[in-house]
């Protein structure tokens, strides 16, 4: 059993080194999907709504935020605005089913790294993430 210990430590260590992504979507299946798609390379933290996302992003450090727009409690746009107001410049990928929101979001917010329209191709998403923050 003891042989596993260094291994566990190694995992922990590597996790500390891995880049952190905050996935925020009110739909559980989407969160699970993104988690499954990205967890091999990144440390993925899930937030189920805007409020949770704000709380986590303020408290912890993330290299990237992947976020839905239409969410209960706090709307995605508001999350972005509040984060920027607090000088949190974490790059954000917006994933929304509403294509028509794209212009709106780009005009209203700065530092939105990318806007992806659902259905998202996870291969494309992975490439985008890699492009933005590397491994």
């Amino acid at each position: 059993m003891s042989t596993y210990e260094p291994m566990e430590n190694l995992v922990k260590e590597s996790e500390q080194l891995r880049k952190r992504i905050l996935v925020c979507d009110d739909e559980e299946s989407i969160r699970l999907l993104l988690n499954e798609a990205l967890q091999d390379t990144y440390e993925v933290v899930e937030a189920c709504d805007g409020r949770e996302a704000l709380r986590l992003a303020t408290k912890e450090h993330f290299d990237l935020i992947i976020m839905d727009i239409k969410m209960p409690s706090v709307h995605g746009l508001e999350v972005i605005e509040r984060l920027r107001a607090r000088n949190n410049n974490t790059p954000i990928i917006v994933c929304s089913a509403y294509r028509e929101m794209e212009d709106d979001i780009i005009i209203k917010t700065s530092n939105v790294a990318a806007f992806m329209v659902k259905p998202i191709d996870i291969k494309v998403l992975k490439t985008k993430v890699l492009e933005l923050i590397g491994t």
Partner: protein
Amino acid sequence: MNKRTILLLRFVLILATILVMAYSKRGLDIASPSYVVALLYFLTNLVLYFIPETKLSRPIITFSVFLSDIIAISLAIYFTQGMQTDFYLIYFLIIFIASVGQNIRGSILIAVVASALYGWLLVQSNPGISILDSAILIRVPFLFIVSLISSYWSVMMRKQLRSTKELEESAQKLQQEVARITAKETELRRYSETVIHSVASGVIAVRGDGTITTVNPEAARVLGTTQENLVDRKIETIKGLDTLWQKMKKAINTNKPFERLQISIINADDIIVPVGLSVSPMASPDTKFKGCVAILRDLSEVKQLEEKLKHAERLSYLGKMASWVAHEIRNPLTVIDGFSQLLTQTSNKEKMQTFSSEIHKATQRINHIIEDILTFSRTKTQVKSSSVNLWTLMKEITENISGIRIFIKGVENPNVKGEEESLKSLFLNIIHNSVDAMDKDPKLIIEFREQTKWIITELTDNGKGISKEDLKNLFTPFFTTKSRGTGLGLAIVKKIVDDHSGKLEVESEENKGTTCRVFLPKADAS
């Protein structure tokens, strides 16, 4: 007798007097005082000329005039001693004129005076004459009788004349009155015709037997024909007006008005015209007239506008629906697409199971969305009315709901008229909303009540309630406060209730809970 006639007759009398005097026993003598009499006589006639006619016609004046005539003639006879001549005949003349010129009493007085004076003259010219002398015995009564007869005759004539004149006058007056009333009536008729013709609504009046009496231009326009083509025709013989006549007949027979009806008529151009209708019976107790008047309002434009509005609404819904469908389906599509890609990259059995289960859930979700759209967009369907026991239905629905306490109570056998599948969908949607709204100690009470023709199903939850603002939009399609709500649930509820000709009431207090009351028609007791 008018002034001119009197003056003329007197002038004749004066001439006759002078003539008689000239042929009298004494002959014409310049120094004779009879000339003074003749002159005076002539002068009185001149005076008469200046007396206004109205005064002259007064009985006392005419009487005085004739009296003065008698006196003048008597004096002339006296002075000329004309009794021996036929001078006395002149008395007849004056009596006759007097009787024509005045009333019977005046004539008799004149006759009396004339007879007396004549008698006196006779006695004067023949002193010692016996009363039984023929001159007195015959001439005096004769004078009197002539006076009586002529005055009676003239009175009768006058009466007849007067009545003829009166008759003529009254006939004339009557004629004028008739003309005046006719003019008035024509004016009134024109006025009421103008009123009826100016009404923007169509007006049709019929007698009890259905004969059309009045049609205004608007009614003729709605019916696609002319007024002339309708008036005096029986309404039941006109094609396309059956419904209208039925309603009018009903109003006549029941003697009750019917208002704000909506019917369709087929006009002369074979166009179906939607018409707003009010019918009122016409019956007056004093006449035997019975009938009905109908006021028509052409609703074609209103209906067209309504259709346009509905169309616009449909388009707007369609737009909203498209956007909603896109959004709703893109999420599960992402899930299906993503997990199917991940499936190919993993060999972990557990993960494979999770992924395929997610794919399954996503396809189910898409199917659910499609179901919702179909239910909602279905046009009003004729509900197949079978008897549905809500208690059994509710048991079935709530069986699969876990995590909340559900109490069902109320009347036994709450049987409603409806379609089982729709009703299931109706209550399932309401219950889902309740379930979503509750978090702490979730409790749902379902109670059945009976009220006249309704079965009321009351569903009360202890959820977070609905804000006043959201209550307004509760049944608006695509309106949702839930992140993953379809926005169609309660719109579908409303639609199903409407399809069942039911009613829906929602009461809610924030942080306390919501009560939803569904009224459905009771099933026939058979």
